C-alpha cells in the first residue's frame, strides 16, 4: 500500500468536519489538490492544509491507498465517512462519526474515538484500539435502520447504546460497555468482553454475548438453558453460558442473550 500522510498542525477549538479524508477522494489527486480540499470549521470552509501538513505522492487507485494521520485528530469529525475501499490509519484519537456509513476498506484508530463510530456501517472494518464513547455502530438519530454489515472492534471500553437498531454485522467490545448495548437490535452479533448493564432492551433479533458481569438483567429476558463452548456462526466462545431469549417486551422476538456463567 502507498501512503499519503496528514500531520496535524495546531488544532482548532471548534471541531473540524472532514469527510474528505477518504481514500476515494484522495485517489488521483496531486498533493496540491489534496491540500486544497475543503473542510468545515464551524460555519466556515477552510482548506485541509490549514490544519494538516500533507506529504506523500499521488496514488491513482484508492485500493492501494493508505491515509495515515500521524498524530491526534481528536478534533476532527467524520473521518472516513462513507468510505468504500483503501485504508485509514490514525496514530491518535478521532472525533465523532469515524467510519460512519462506510461500505468497505479498513480504518484503524490507535487512540480513542468519540461517539457514533461506524454509525450505519454497511461493510468493511473499523478498529479502535483505545476507548470509544457512546453509540458505536448505531443508527442515525431517529432512523430505525442501523448498522447492516462489516465489523467494529473496540479494544478498550465503549459508552452507551452500542449497536442501536443493528441489522447485521458484528461489534466486538473487548472491554466493558455502558447501559443499553443492543437497544432495538434486529440482527447481527455484539460481543462484550467485560461488564455491561441492561443489555438488549427492545431487541427483536440477533445475538449478544457478555463475558463479564451483567448488572440488572431486563425483565423481558427469559432463561432458556445453558450452553458449553458457545458457537455463533463463525465465532466460538469458551466457557459456560446462560442462554436467554428476549426482549419479550416486544412482539415476534428472536433475540438471544448469552451471559457467561461465573466459575
Amino acid at each position, binding site marked *: 500500500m502507498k501512503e499519503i500522510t496528514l500531520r496535524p498542525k495546531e488544532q482548532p477549538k471548534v471541531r473540524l468536519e472532514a469527510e474528505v479524508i477518504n481514500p476515494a477522494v484522495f485517489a488521483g489527486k496531486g498533493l496540491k489538490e489534496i491540500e486544497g480540499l475543503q473542510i468545515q470549521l464551524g460555519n466556515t470552509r477552510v482548506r485541509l492544509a490549514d490544519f494538516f501538513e500533507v506529504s506523500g505522492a499521488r496514488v491513482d487507485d484508492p485500493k492501494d491507498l493508505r491515509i495515515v494521520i500521524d498524530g491526534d485528530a481528536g478534533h476532527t469529525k467524520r473521518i472516513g465517512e462513507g468510505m468504500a475501499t483503501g485504508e485509514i490509519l490514525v496514530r491518535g484519537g478521532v472525533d465523532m462519526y469515524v467510519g460512519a456509513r462506510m461500505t468497505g476498506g479498513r480504518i484503524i484508530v490507535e487512540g480513542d474515538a468519540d461517539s457514533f463510530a461506524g454509525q450505519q456501517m454497511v461493510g468493511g472494518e473499523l478498529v479502535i484500539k483505545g476507548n470509544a464513547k457512546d453509540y458505536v455502530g448505531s*443508527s442515525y*438519530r*431517529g*432512523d430505525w435502520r442501523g448498522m447492516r454489515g462489516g465489523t467494529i472492534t473496540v479494544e478498550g471500553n465503549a459508552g452507551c447504546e452500542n449497536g442501536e437498531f443493528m441489522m447485521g454485522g458484528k461489534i466486538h467490545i473487548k472491554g466493558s460497555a455502558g447501559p443499553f448495548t443492543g437497544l432495538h437490535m434486529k440482527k447481527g452479533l455484539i460481543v462484550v468482553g467485560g461488564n455491561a448493564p441492561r443489555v438488549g432492551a427492545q431487541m427483536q433479533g440477533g445475538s449478544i454475548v457478555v463475558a463479564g458481569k451483567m448488572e440488572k438483567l431486563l425483565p423481558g429476558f427469559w432463561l432458556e438453558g445453558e450452553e458449553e463452548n458457545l458457537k455463533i456462526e463463525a465465532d466460538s466462545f469458551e466457557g459456560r453460558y446462560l442462554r436467554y431469549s428476549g426482549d419479550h417486551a416486544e412482539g415476534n422476538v428472536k433475540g438471544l442473550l448469552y451471559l457467561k456463567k461465573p466459575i
Partner: protein
Amino acid sequence: MSLILKNGIVYDPRNGMKGEKKDIFIENGKVVEKLRDRKAQVIDVSNKLVMPGGVEIHSHIAGGKVNVGRMLRPEDRLKLIMPRTPLTRSGAGFANPTAFMTGYLYSKMGYTTTFTPAMPPLMAKHTHEELHDIPMTDKGAYALTDGNWFIYKYLKEGDIDKCAAYVAWLLKATRGLAIKVVNPGGTEAWGWGKNCTSLDDPVPNFDITPREIIRGLMEVNERLGLPHSIHLHTTNLGRLGNYVTTLETLKIPNGTKAAFDRQVMHLTHLQFHCFGGDTWKNFESKADEVVKEVNKRENVAIDSGNVTLDETTTMTADGPMEYYLQSLSHLKWVNKNVEMETAPGVTPFIYSNKMSSSSIQWAIGLEVELLVKDPWKIMLTTDHPNGGPFFRYPRIIAWLMSRKYREKTMAEVHKAVQDHTILPTLDREYTLDEIATITRAAPARAFGPLAETKGHLGVGADGDVSVYDIDPRAFNPNDYLEIEERFSKAAYTVKGGEVVVKDGEIVKVVQGRTLWSSPPVNEALAREVMKDIEYSFKRYYSVNLANYPVAEGYLSGSTPIVTKSKIA
C-alpha cells in the same frame, strides 16, 4: 415598478391561450393591458413557455403535525440539505423541508400560491407562525372542522344558521381560508378508540353521521359564500374496498347550489380513495369506476394525491388511519387529540416500487389524472408529504405528458400494476394546456372569486408568472427527463411583478400575503353563538377564550376576503 415579459409562448387556460406568442405587462404587481411606465424592465423570453404562477391547493407545509413530523424524523433531514446562500437561509428535510426552504422550493418550480389544508383551530397560532416563515408565495390555511363539538351540536339541532355563524367565528378566529373536513366524525370517535367506517356510521355520543356532517357543512359553506367549497377527505381513506364510500360521497352534493361558478365539494387526494379488493393480495385500482362518477358530476372537483414512490412521512388529521398505517408498517408513530376539534397522526411510510400496494397506488394516481375528461375538475397534488414530496411535481408532469415515461416506470415497478390497474391501457398524454389547467387555472377556479386574480394572466390578474425553458413548438413529450428537469427549475418566476427566480435559483426573497375568509354575520346571531362559545370554553377547553384567536398582526400580509354571506 413594472416589467415586460417579451415574446413568450403563453399558456393561459382561463383566457383561452394555447401557445400564442404574447407579451405580458405587469405594473404595480398586476397584469395590465399597457404600461404607463416607460422605464419598465424588459425580459426577453422568446420561445420559452409562459404560464400563470402555480397554485397549490393541498400541501401540508404548515401546522402542528408538520412540525411533529419534523421532530419524529430527524433522519429525514439527512436526505435533503440546502446550505445558506447570501440571499437564502439554510434548510433541510426531504419529506418535511424546513419552512424557509419550503418557500424556496415552491418558487423554484414556478409556484406563487400555496395553501395548507389542515389547520387544527387550537393550533392556528402555530400554523400562522410557520406560514410566516414560508417566503416567496401567497398562503392560506384551511381550518379543520371534522371533529368539532359545536358543529355537531348545531347540525344535530338542525340549526344551519347558528352553525354557519359559529364557522364564521372560527374562520375569523383562526384566520382560516376554507373549511377542511377530515374523516368526518371518525376523528371524534377515535377519542374512544373507535372510527366511523361508513357514511352512516354515527359518531359515539353525538348521534350524528359523517353524511350529515358533510351535507351540513356544505350548506354552511355556501350560506357563508366562502371562496372555496368544503374541502373533504372522506371516510375510509387508505382502506381496502373504500371506493364504495367514495362513490357514495360523490352523490352527497346532489342538488346543492354553489355560491360561485365552482364545485360545491372538493374531494381531496382521490388516489387514496380508489381502493378495491378486500385483502392486500387482491388489492386493485377502482379509479375507473370512481372517475366515471366524477366525470358525470358538475358540482364536484378533485385533486389527485399522486404517489411518487419515495420514502416519506404521512400526516393527516385522520388519527385512526395513521394508527392503522403503523399497524401495517410497524414504524414509529404519533397520535394527538386536539380537544374538541380533531385528532391527527403522523408515521413514516416507504412507498417501494418492489411492493405491489405502493406500485398500484402509484398507478391509481396517474389513472385518476388520465381518466378525468375535463381537466378543470382535477388538480395536481401529492397530498404532500403523504403521497410524496411536492417537489416531485415535475416528475408527475412528465409521467402525464409522456406515455413512454410511464412505460419505463411500469417496467420498474411491481408487476401487479399490469393486472390490478388499467394504467397500461391508457394512451392519453397531457398537453401543455392541460398541465397549465391542473396546476394553475383549475385550482384557482376552485376558489371562486380568487380566480379573478390567480391562475391566469389576463388584465387584472396578480403579476405572478412562471417561465420555463421549454419551446412549446419544438417540444417532444418523449424527452421526459428534459420535461422533468425544466419544470423543476423555472427560467423565471415572477411574484407580484418582481423576478424572484432566475435559471432555477432564488434571486430575490419576497414575503407573500396570507389570505383568509371573513364572512359577515348579523349581530344578534353572532351574540347568541358567542354565548355558547364562552360556555364551552369555560367548561371544556384547556385555553382561555381570549387566548384562542390569532391576532391579525401574526399574519404576514394579512388579506381578508370579506364574503357575501347570507347570514349578514
